[in-house]
C-alpha cells in the first residue's frame, strides 16, 4: 500500500460490501472487506486496485470490475455504489469519482448493473453486448465513398448541431439501465436516435433506424419507460430525457404513417 497513501496521514478506513459472483449460473452475494489507509486523492477504481492487491497477497480471488480509459470517455466502468450508478457525484463516471467524496468509517456497498439483459459475467462485470446489438440495428449513417467532401458543403444549424452533439455524449455505459426501476434502456436508444435525427446525414435511415433500434431494445428484454427520469439523474454525460421524447415522436410517426415518408 505504500506509495498510495500519500498526503493524508493514515487515510480513510472503509468497510466495503462487494457483490461477489463466480459466473452467471452461480448465485452471488455481498462480501465485506476492510480497506485501510485509503488516500482521499485516489480514484474509486484505484481504491479497488488496492483492495485487489491485498486480496492477491492473501491468495484470494481479486474482485472483477470493468474499466478501460479511466478518463470518463470510454464507458467501460460501471458499479452501483450505495445505490447510485457511478456513485454519488452527478455527471461523473466511477473512474472519475474520488475517495475524498467518502468519510472515514463509511460503509460502501458496491453492486453490478442489474438488468435481465445485462447478465453478470463475474462479480461486478456484466455483459453489455445487448447495447452493441441495438447499435448494430441502426446506429450508423450511410456515406458515399469518394473524395473528401467540402467542409461547408452541408450546412447544419448551430441549434441542431448542439442537440445532436449533446446526444452524442452518450458513452454507452448502461448507467441509465442500472438506474431505471424498469431496467429500461430508452435513454440509451433515445440518445443514439437523437444523435442522428438532427443531422442531414441521419435523414435517409431516420425512420427505419428508430423502428429497428426500438424493436431490438424490446427484444433484448429491457423494460419500458415510465418517465421516472431516474436515467437522466444517473447519466454521467447528463443526457436529457428529451431524447426519449424525440425517439417516441419518430417511432410513432414511423409506425403510424409508414417508414418511407
Amino acid at each position, binding site marked *: 500500500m505504500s506509495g498510495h497513501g500519500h498526503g493524508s496521514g493514515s487515510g480513510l478506513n472503509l468497510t466495503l460490501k462487494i457483490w461477489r459472483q463466480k459466473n452467471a449460473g452461480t448465485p452471488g452475494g455481498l462480501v465485506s472487506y476492510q480497506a485501510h489507509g485509503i488516500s482521499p486523492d485516489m480514484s474509486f477504481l484505484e481504491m479497488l486496485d488496492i483492495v485487489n492487491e491485498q486480496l492477491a497477497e492473501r491468495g484470494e480471488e481479486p474482485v472483477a470490475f470493468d474499466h478501460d480509459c479511466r478518463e470518463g470517455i470510454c464507458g467501460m466502468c460501471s458499479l452501483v455504489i450505495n445505490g447510485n450508478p457511478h456513485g454519488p457525484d452527478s455527471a461523473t463516471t466511477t473512474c472519475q469519482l474520488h475517495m475524498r467524496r467518502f468519510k472515514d468509517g463509511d460503509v460502501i456497498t458496491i453492486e453490478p448493473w442489474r438488468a435481465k439483459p445485462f447478465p453478470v459475467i463475474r462479480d461486478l462485470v456484466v455483459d453489455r453486448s445487448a447495447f452493441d446489438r441495438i447499435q448494430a440495428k441502426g446506429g450508423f449513417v450511410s456515406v458515399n465513398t469518394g473524395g473528401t467532401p467540402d467542409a461547408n458543403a452541408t450546412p447544419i444549424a448551430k441549434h441542431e448541431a448542439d442537440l445532436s452533439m449533446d446526444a452524442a455524449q452518450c458513452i454507452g455505459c448502461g448507467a441509465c439501465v442500472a438506474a431505471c426501476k424498469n431496467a429500461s434502456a430508452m435513454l440509451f436508444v433515445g440518445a443514439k436516435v437523437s444523435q442522428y435525427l438532427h443531422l442531414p446525414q441521419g435523414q435517409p435511415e431516420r425512420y427505419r433506424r428508430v423502428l429497428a433500434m426500438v424493436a431490438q431494445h424490446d427484444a433484448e428484454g429491457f423494460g419500458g419507460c415510465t418517465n421516472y427520469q431516474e436515467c437522466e439523474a444517473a447519466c454521467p454525460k447528463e443526457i436529457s430525457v428529451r431524447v426519449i421524447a424525440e425517439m*417516441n415522436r419518430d417511432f410513432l410517426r414511423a409506425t403510424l404513417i409508414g417508414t418511407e415518408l
Partner: protein
Amino acid sequence: MDGDVIKVPAPGVSKVIDRLLASTIGQKAIMAVTGFALVGFVFVHMAGHLQMFQGPEAYNKYAHMLQGMGGIKWGLRGLLLVGVFAHMWAGVRLMMRNMSARPDNYAVNKWLAASASAKTMRVTGPIVLFFIVYHLLHFTLLKVSSQGFEDMVYQLNGVGDVPDVYQRMVVSYQNPVLTAIYVLSVTLLGTHLAHGIQSMFQTLGLNNNTYRPAVQVASRALALIAVLGFVAVPLAILAGVIK
C-alpha cells in the same frame, strides 16, 4: 454497410396495429391516448358536478339533459369503457415486463429523481379503478345505498318528475364516511394525474427541454384543479353550504 442490416416490414394497417401492440413505446402511446380521453372525461365530469352550487333546479336539469342524450350517451360510455380497459391492459402488460426486466433487485435500492406521484402510479391506478366501480354502483346503478334513492323525485320546470340526483348527492355526502372515501379517492386520482398528464406529453413526443418545465407545472396544476373541483361539492354538503 450491408443493405440488409435494417429490416423493417412494409407497413399495412395490421402491421401498424401489430407494431403498436407489440412495442413498449406503442403500448405507452395507447396509455397516453386513452389517458388523454379519460382526463377529458374527468374535467367534464367535474364541471358538471360544480353545478351543484347552483341548486337543485339547475343540477337536475343538467342531469336530465345528459340522460336525454340517448345514443350519444351510450357511445361516449362505450368509448370510456374501451379507454379504461385499454389503459389497464397496456399498464399491466408494461408493468409485468418492467418487473421481469429487473429480476434481482439491488441491496441498496435508491430513488434519484422520480416524484412521489410517479412512484405510486401502480398503486393509485387500481385504487382509482375500484373507486370508479364503487361510484358507478352507488350513483348510476343504485346498488350501494340504502338511502332511498328511488323515492327521490324532483318536479322539474316544464318537464315533470325526474330523479332527484341533487338530493341523492346531498343525502350521500352528509355522511362523513362517504365524504371521506370520496375525498381520499379523488386525491389519489389527482396524484395519478400529476404524473400521468406530463407523462402523456413525453410519451407522445410532445415535449422538449423548452416546454418540459411548463408541461410539468401544468400537469400538477391540472391535477390540483381536478381535486379541488371534485372535493368542493361533498365538503360543501358536509359543511351545510349545499343542502
